[in-house]
């Protein structure tokens, strides 16, 4: 087995990371930037979880059969904590955006930059 199938989830991880990164850079809306970073993050999750996958293995919950091969649980553990941490950090980012909205009246990065320039003499 070679070619595209050997790296199937890796291509998806690449695509998700790039889509997320593009949104984080190109979209001026701060909330959209946060969504983009979230997508970027899940791209990396895809990479980790696909590392833990083995052909012919099953989910890492012990069955009665001693011959069973299990998927690698280490990436699972790293990512499941990362998911909960990611929602917490997203909440902090969103509350910062709420404060920015309160101070500037907008959440568009380019408009905020324009307001900053106006403020300077």
């Amino acid at each position, binding site marked *: 087995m070679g070619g595209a199938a050997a790296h199937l989830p890796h291509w998806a991880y690449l695509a998700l990371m790039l889509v997320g990164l593009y949104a984080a850079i190109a979209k001026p809306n701060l909330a959209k930037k946060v969504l983009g970073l979230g997508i970027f993050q899940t791209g990396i999750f895809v990479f980790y979880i696909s590392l833990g*996958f083995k052909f012919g293995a099953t989910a890492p919950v012990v069955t009665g059969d001693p011959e069973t091969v299990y998927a690698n649980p280490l990436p699972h553990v790293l990512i499941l904590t990362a998911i909960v941490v990611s929602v917490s950090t997203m909440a902090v980012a969103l509350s910062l955006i709420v404060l920015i909205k309160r101070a500037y009246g907008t959440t568009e990065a380019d408009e905020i930059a324009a307001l900053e320039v106006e403020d300077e003499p």
Partner: protein
Amino acid sequence: MNELALLAGLLALVVATAVGTVQARNLYAATILLGIYSLLMALTWTLLHAVDVAFTEASVGAGVSTILLFAALVRIGGRETENQSNLHLPALLLVLLLGGLLAYGLEDAPAFGDPDAPVHRRAAAFYTSLESYHLSHSKNLATPVLASYRGYDTLFETAVIFTAGLAMILLLRKESAGSPAEAEEIAEDPPAAEPDAVDPGRSARLLGRPGGAPRDLGRHPVLSKVCKTVVPFVVVFGLYVITHGELGPGGGFQGGVIIAAAFVLVALVFGLPRARQFLPRAWSDALAGVGVLVYAGVGLTTMALGGTYLEYARLALDPEHPAGGQTLGMTLVEMGVGVTVAAVMATIFSEMVED
């Protein structure tokens, strides 16, 4: 091969949903798309045999983060301005350059699903062996990795979640409303809180209509009945998930989020003040720290018993069977995680909707 075709289809849907999320001008639509994205992700994780991750993704990604984004959008506005150019050329070039470099690097990556890939050797080979099961008596092989072998890692992840909750309080909570005495006053004084429960402005804002007419969901017969019926089951299920992380998928992170979901449900239907009667602000603030302290305290206890930090075998009541200590230690630690996660998620939600 069937599995691969299914995986390819799911991943294509995931990428398409991601593009849709980024493209949507209406941020509410983008949020719903992100929720769909998370559900598709949960299916992908299941297909890749990461059942614990799928569980977390379904409860956090599709549940809590969607509701949180909505709460935030109500306050910051749900529409992107139209004055942006459609294509940001420097960003596109940068992204394509990075993509090219990563794709070039992929050639040397081990093939997907290769059972002999380097990541499956050394410690990982032990994690998936029955030796690990006999040592910890945990049927779910992910749980000892989470709570025992990588216990330090998880302790500090929990601390990060606690810190995020703290940051939310510092950023958004108003000083006047922040005194614990006042929170207790609400909790101990139901008549005063009752009219608050149908505060028109608050429930309307919660549902995306600032200053709108009262949206009295709490008096809606179907919603209030179903909500009252479902909430106890949700809480019990959350507790089950926290305590049964060793027998199957689940654990403190997932269970904590599920308990917080019950809080969010009550707040959505009956208003935040009513939800705060079940979990007063002073309590959730304190519990967020208590969870981390329980976790850290287990470590100190094992030290006091003559072991190293988080050496659960020392907790065994019968020194002949150290696995009993492992079970006890991991259960206590998972409970600590669950308490912190539930309290912080409730804090995050209520700080976001309250103004």
